[in-house]
């Protein structure tokens, strides 16, 4: 590889040319990227933009109920993108929300892209904060910026990015705007060029902090591979039956294989 071409690769102007949509070809990949967010924020639209697939999208909360997977190549690395069902919270237990939660918890994506609705940022942040508790490597995609503009809502993405400690990319996925910047951030977070310093919830209760600390220590001893013992501890304190079961039968210890199956839902 000569010097000129490597210059091109790192030049932001040429990024569009560096995206190769791989559709459902995920034969070998370097990074796994999860797409999470509240219902109807445009996750599937982002998914389609990046993979070139045509997962059905609609102005309709709850379009995606299982995960859909696709691939793309960017800057010479192959990525597997997993479109998760929309969820308001990771603390409840319906099937579609469990799919999202389990994947972020156990699928160990290299990057989790949280797609949020810019017009309803405060509500969307509730999920973002919960995801930041589970995983460090997050990119926030501030979607539907055109609607926010229409409603004359102004968002300072630099302040937001500084507060949350992760990259924040304004976008209009429906019109393919902001996708290059998003790709670049995914690339930087995946390769460790951007180190996230995620915002962590501040709890005032001393009893709670003690309990979480004690439990996560026990958990780490029993399941050394567990990436987010603190979150599991919180769930245990809440008495989440599926987490209790997965501890009892040892499932929690196994790193969930992220290529279990390709389930593409075509909704006509």
């Amino acid at each position, binding site marked *: 590889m000569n010097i000129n071409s490597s210059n091109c690769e790192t030049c932001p102007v040429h990024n569009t040319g560096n995206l190769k949509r791989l559709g459902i070809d995920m034969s070998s990949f370097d990074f796994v990227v999860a797409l999470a967010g509240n219902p*109807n924020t445009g996750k599937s639209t982002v998914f389609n933009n990046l993979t070139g697939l045509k997962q059905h999208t609609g102005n309709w909360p709850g379009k995606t*109920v299982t995960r859909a997977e696709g691939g793309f190549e960017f800057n010479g690395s192959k990525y597997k993108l997993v479109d998760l069902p929309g969820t308001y919270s990771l*603390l409840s237990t*319906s099937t579609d929300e469990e799919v999202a939660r389990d994947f972020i918890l156990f699928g160990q994506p290299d990057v989790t892209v949280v797609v949020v609705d810019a017009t309803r940022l405060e509500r969307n942040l509730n999920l973002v904060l919960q995801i930041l508790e589970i995983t460090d490597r997050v990119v926030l995609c501030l979607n539907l910026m055109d609607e926010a503009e229409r409603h004359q809502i102004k968002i300072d993405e630099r302040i937001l990015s500084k507060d949350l400690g992760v990259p924040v990319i304004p976008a209009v996925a429906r019109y393919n705007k902001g996708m290059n910047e998003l790709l670049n951030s995914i690339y930087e977070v995946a390769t460790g060029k951007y180190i996230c310093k995620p915002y962590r*919830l501040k709890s005032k209760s001393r009893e709670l902090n003690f309990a979480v600390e004690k439990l996560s220590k026990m958990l780490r001893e*029993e399941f050394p591979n567990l990436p987010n013992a603190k979150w599991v501890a919180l769930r245990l304190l809440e008495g989440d039956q599926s987490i209790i079961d997965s501890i009892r039968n040892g499932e929690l210890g196994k790193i969930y294989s992220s290529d279990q199956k390709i389930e593409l839902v075509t909704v006509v």
Partner: protein
Amino acid sequence: MNNEQKNRESILSTANNLRWEIGEHFHDTLMESIYLNASDISKRAVTIPSEKATVSWEKTVDKILTSRYTGFPIMFLILGVVFWLTIEGANVPSALIASFLLDTIHPALKSLSSFIGMPFWLDGVLIDGAYLAMAWVVSVMLPPMMIFFPLFTLLEDFGYLPRVSFNMDNLYRRVGAHGKQALTMAMGFGCNAAGVVATRVIDSPREKLIAIITNNFSLCNGRWPTQILIATIFIGAAAPAYLAGIVSAAAVVFIAVLGIVFSLVVSWGLSKSVLKGEASAFSLELPPYRPPRILRTLYTSLIDRTIFVLWRAIVFAIPAGVVIWLVGNVAVEGESIANIFINWINPFAFILGLNGVIFLAYIIAIPANEIVIPSILMLTVANLGLAGVGAGSGVMFELDSVADTANILNAGGWTLLTGINLMIFSLLHNPCSTTIYTIYKETKSVKWTLISSFLPIAMGLIVTFFVAQIWRIFAGS
């Protein structure tokens, strides 16, 4: 108990003890701190304009679309306009495609086959069976789909469907089902298999089962063309010409609404008997209205929906065409198998205001609802012994328009009652094979799969029976 298990149990029991110590309000405290944090962060980053400046037309539109008084009338009106456009618009392209595939290509294939000396049975199975069935599916189904799907997708893109669910939610809750069933029902209008998959958004197994069993009462893509065609031929023809389009559109809306009524009644019945329980609460977020992207919508609804549904129909139509040709041409003691079955079941079908051809067509069309009408037409021709292009029964002669389709059906002894009951039966019969398989995958239960499959048929038989009896008492025919 080994060491590993001991450790795990000790984690669980520690968690149990700690749970007591931190108290029961722990979940609320946690949620509260999340909300507070979120609110702080968003206050720093977001500038929201004063109330006055915000776009308020959305609120006004929502008030009208989801109002207790105007919500339902507007819903019926919108559906009516969509069907009217479909019915009025589909005729011309339908005639064009039919004349091309049936008048031009079919004779060309026939002369080619006689030129290369194909044996008569191979020629019959391939050209008069498989090819004609495919040509039929394309010319009958493609034009209405090309108009209906883009219109439906535009409505969906605009954000109207969640408003429909919002209107319906209260009704579903009152019959003891989950409000989200309104969402899965609306999805079923596209495809029942998709609607069944969508029931995953419902947490409670009881309410999920109700939603799965009743999803079939949402008319799906495969059945819309049947409804539209039969409504045009029989209902529209019974009205004065200038009203025909509006009357047929109203008839289709009526059947669709009847389906919703049945889904409510059956949900009520189930939640009061085998699936007893209280309805659980949920929140439904009304998405913002978004200007639909016309070109993108045309593209996706053509590629994803029209071609997808058409392709599925063709795949199922080709073997069905072969079967139809075979049952029309293989004879036992001088009579074709089709005739034997049709004559055998005719007395029973007559009681239901249907006929033997419809029953045979529904049996052949179990794999896909899309091919019911083509099968009925091919079987009617075969049964009447009408032979058109080429030789042998089971061969369609060329049909240029809806009017010619009507001629065949009238020749087959169809009346207004047959048309009405076919529309009802098309609403109330077993789900297609894909949906049945999906139901099994979702419920993992043979029992509930069987119930979901046979309950609608039983209802269809009962309803058509009563309609036929009442019709005959009053109309006397």
